[in-house]
């Protein structure tokens, strides 16, 4: 089938404009426009996100097929009724609990300074794992700063910071690499935690001097200077059996629920090495 001439011309024009826009984006020339646009969009995103959270809680319960199959019709209706009641009534109290958790994290790390931020959007792309926060450079947030969950575990780092909002690259993003250490009986082993599009988090390049254990906790090692030492990343969910390999590797279960983040803490007192180098 021949492509009409005007469509072909349109395609060429669109490709040229898009490539030019991408180049401008990569050189941060589009950032001022994006910042202004997001200033307008953010209130709407926050409102939609707040409206979606109770529905999400109900939806996640309703799609738990294993429990629904096992229960009879009266119990299923009762659970749906209770979930709807919890979702509608308890959202405010959950918010209070989150803030209390955040306060506990701040008190546990009294030497650090934090900015509390709400998650207002998730990047819908299948290849990127990014979240948007409603805080930015005007609140002291800079690119590279470390982000924790409400429970104090590692979520990711700021990848782009604008005046009133910021994008955070999650540790489950394929581009994320964190120097880590595995807590084992008798000591720790160093390794690297990398985002994995399929499994979420993979642990790699661990010395074979001691065997890994399922359930072992993995924390940041502080090597490289981009993350403080001792932040909880997750626990080992499975270990790849490779007897002849030079290093051990496995899959981690992230400590933070990346799909259900609502509020996070940005550590503003810790300057990553990549920021200090500028």
């Amino acid at each position, binding site marked *: 089938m021949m492509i009409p001439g005007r469509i072909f011309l349109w395609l060429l024009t669109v490709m040229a404009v*898009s490539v030019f826009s991408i180049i401008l984006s990569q050189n941060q020339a589009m950032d001022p426009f994006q910042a202004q646009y997001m200033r307008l969009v953010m209130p709407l995103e926050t409102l939609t996100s707040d409206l979606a959270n109770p529905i999400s809680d109900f939806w996640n319960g309703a799609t738990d097929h294993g429990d629904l199959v096992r229960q009879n019709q009266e119990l299923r209706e009762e659970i749906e009724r209770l979930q709807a009641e919890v979702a509608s009534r308890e959202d405010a109290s959950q918010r209070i609990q989150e803030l209390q958790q955040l306060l506990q994290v701040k008190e546990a790390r009294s030497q650090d300074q934090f900015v509390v931020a709400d998650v207002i959007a*998730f990047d819908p792309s299948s290849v*990127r794992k990014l979240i948007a926060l409603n805080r930015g450079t005007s609140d002291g947030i800079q690119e590279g700063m470390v982000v924790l969950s409400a429970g104090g575990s590692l979520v990711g780092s700021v990848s782009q910071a604008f005046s009133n909002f910021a994008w955070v690259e999650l540790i489950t993003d394929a581009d994320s690499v964190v120097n880590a250490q595995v807590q084992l009986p008798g000591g720790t082993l160093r390794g690297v935690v990398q985002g994995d*599009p399929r499994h979420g988090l993979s642990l790699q390049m661990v010395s074979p001097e001691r065997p890994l254990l399922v359930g072992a906790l993995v924390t940041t090692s502080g090597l490289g200077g981009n993350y403080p030492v001792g932040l909880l990343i997750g626990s080992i969910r499975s270990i790849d059996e490779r007897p002849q390999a030079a290093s051990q590797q496995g899959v981690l279960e992230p400590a933070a629920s990346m799909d259900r983040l609502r509020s996070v803490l940005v550590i503003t007192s810790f300057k990553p090495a990549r920021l200090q180098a500028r």
Partner: protein
Amino acid sequence: MKYLWAGITAFFLIVLCVSAMPHAKLFGAAPNLLLIFVVCWAMIRGQDEVLGVIIIAGFLRDFTTGDPVGVSVLALAPVALLATVREIRLVDNDFVPALGVVAIGTVLFELISGLVIWLTGENVGWMTLIGFKLFPAMLINVIVTPIIYLPLRWVSGDLRSQAPRLGPTLGF
């Protein structure tokens, strides 16, 4: 005027995509409302009109997400070619071809987005994308298509018939 309506609709669909749809995943994928909207527009209103809608929708999406501006326009561009299916008239309605175009458009959208992001230096898990993400994304988009197709069809009516429709009142 119709492009203004398209832009406003695309804007609200994008806001839904980034703030509400991640909470409504099925088979591990969230519906790409914007892609579905562009395909439905192409199948209902024709190839000529969708050329402008693709540009508006693509740039709006990129300004709202963390992707480089221009990625979505490139990824949506194949819809302009796929819209020729509408003119072939394999079946006597636009809905069935729309489902097929949504499915193919989803695959092309994800692959082109991944390719462009990879070319900008970011790491892309190709095996996972192709092996585990494409089919669920295609499936959820096809399932959600009627939710966008039917209202748009109702507003537009059958452009090939003389039956009264709401479109002219809104400036379509």
